[in-house]
């Protein structure tokens, strides 16, 4: 822990203590880190992703229960492939568990991803990309419960904020997960942290060029593409420090974002004036 003195009250409030993190993680590749992508599936034949999928399952609705069975359906919507592509760009040696909950048919939006999240937590996947959300009030309590379980099990859940007028779950649950909204920044290492805001992290999410089913690429905009940027960064952190808890990961992200902010500041002279 390092105490920073003379820090001006700014975007991050008056907090003056934070831990510093070295830069080793920036040169890592996500080796040995498994990432669960709860989405529309992943195109396993895409050149950026082939050989990187450890597991592909999809939700099946049977006898009022949701089961997860091996899937060769790939990705009919493109979104899951796009997210995996972003993560892979930042952490090329990370491997994926594709949990397909969209496009499987017969499931409501909230119900399907709740089941997918539960599956990922039961498998104790360390890092979970959840670029989905729901505004249905009946999912508030069960999602809250699941995220507490994830937190206790050491699963790091990263969720995309929903840029809609009403709040969406789980992105507004601040304590037990990491929520991300898009920024126009293009450097994945230059993400931001908005201390005290409901959605704390900002990451590139505007015209992001990434993998798309069929072997090509597309430029995409949305909070759901900011989310995998942070997942990629966490994959690098987890390779460097495999035992980080969700809380420590969030603290590390805060520390890195704060350094990013300081780097962006105009240089000040002794009188505190910009030069």
């Amino acid at each position: 822990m390092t105490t920073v003195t003379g820090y001006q009250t700014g975007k991050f409030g008056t907090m003056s203590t934070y831990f510093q993190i070295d830069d080793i993680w920036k040169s890592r590749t996500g080796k040995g880190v498994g990432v669960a992508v709860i989405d529309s599936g992943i195109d396993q034949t895409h050149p950026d992703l082939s050989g990187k999928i450890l597991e592909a399952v999809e939700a099946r609705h049977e006898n009022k229960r949701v089961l997860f069975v091996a899937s060769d359906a790939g990705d009919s919507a493109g979104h899951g492939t796009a997210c995996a592509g972003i993560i892979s760009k930042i952490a090329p040696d990370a491997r994926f568990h594709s949990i397909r909950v969209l496009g499987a048919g017969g499931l409501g939006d909230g119900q399907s991803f709740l089941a997918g999240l539960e599956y990922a937590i039961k498998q104790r996947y360390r890092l979970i990309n959840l670029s989905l959300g729901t505004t249905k009030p009946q999912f508030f309590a069960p999602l809250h419960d699941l995220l507490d379980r994830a937190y206790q099990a050491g699963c790091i859940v990263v969720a995309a904020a929903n840029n809609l007028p009403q709040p969406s779950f789980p992105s507004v649950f601040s304590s037990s997960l990491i929520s991300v909204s898009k920024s126009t920044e293009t450097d994945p290492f230059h993400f931001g942290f908005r201390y005290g805001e409901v959605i704390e992290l900002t990451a590139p999410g505007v015209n992001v060029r990434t993998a798309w089913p069929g072997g090509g690429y597309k430029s995409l905009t949305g909070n759901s593409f900011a989310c995998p940027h942070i997942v990629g960064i966490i994959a690098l952190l987890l390779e460097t420090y495999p035992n980080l808890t969700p809380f420590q990961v969030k603290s590390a992200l805060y520390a890195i974002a704060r350094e990013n902010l300081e780097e962006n500041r105009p240089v000040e002279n002794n009188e505190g004036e910009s030069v």
Partner: protein
Amino acid sequence: MSETAETQLEKKLRRLIETIDVGNALTEPLTDSIVHLLRITAAEMNSEEASVLIREGDDGDLRFLSATGKVAEQLINLRVPAGKGIAGFVFSSGQPMAVADAGEEETFYAEVDKQTGYSTQTILATPLRHNGEVIGVLEYVNRIGEPPYEPFSPVEMDKAALFAEAVASLINAYESVKLFRELGEKMIDGEGTEDYSQVRAWLGELRSAPEHREMLDLAILIRELAARGEAEREMCREVLEAVVKFSDQKSETSFLSY
């Protein structure tokens, strides 16, 4: 209701429904309003085409309800299977997204384009919600003028989310009216009990929905309390009003920074 009363009511309803063109009179003003709104918002978004897709059945399939632009006619009633393409994803995930180069490779949009003869290049899709539930998708496609088209910006994405609120309330009205129209049509067309059984089945489905059951439990509780006397009724009303007030305040403060 006695059988005679039921028969009389049925006769009255038939006469009422037969006097108006149920097929169009109820839904047309709403679909017209949706198209007007799409036109206005498309101009505001500097977009060449705007369209609305609504859910079809319970499996996440979508259908184009309204559209503006060159291929509007061909688009209407075109179906999008569950989870397919950008619209399918936006509908099932509730997440808005924009794609700058939609038509470059083989995608679902290539299939739609093949059917309409249009070339989708840049697209913005945002969910339509009513009471927290996604009921459809609002799309803006391409720009006014010649390609290459400027991609949709984050500011435009926020703008589209606001437009989606207005469109969603019209869609909700449209769906209610459509349901009413279908019930009316069933009463005109059908003879005998079969159609009533369909209506009953529909009401049964409605009743077995978890949200409905929860509300029913609450209603029973209130009825029991209220039946105990004037003082209990008054207290019940005051408590409920206080809860609503508290909940309003809570949602205002909790999500201020959102």
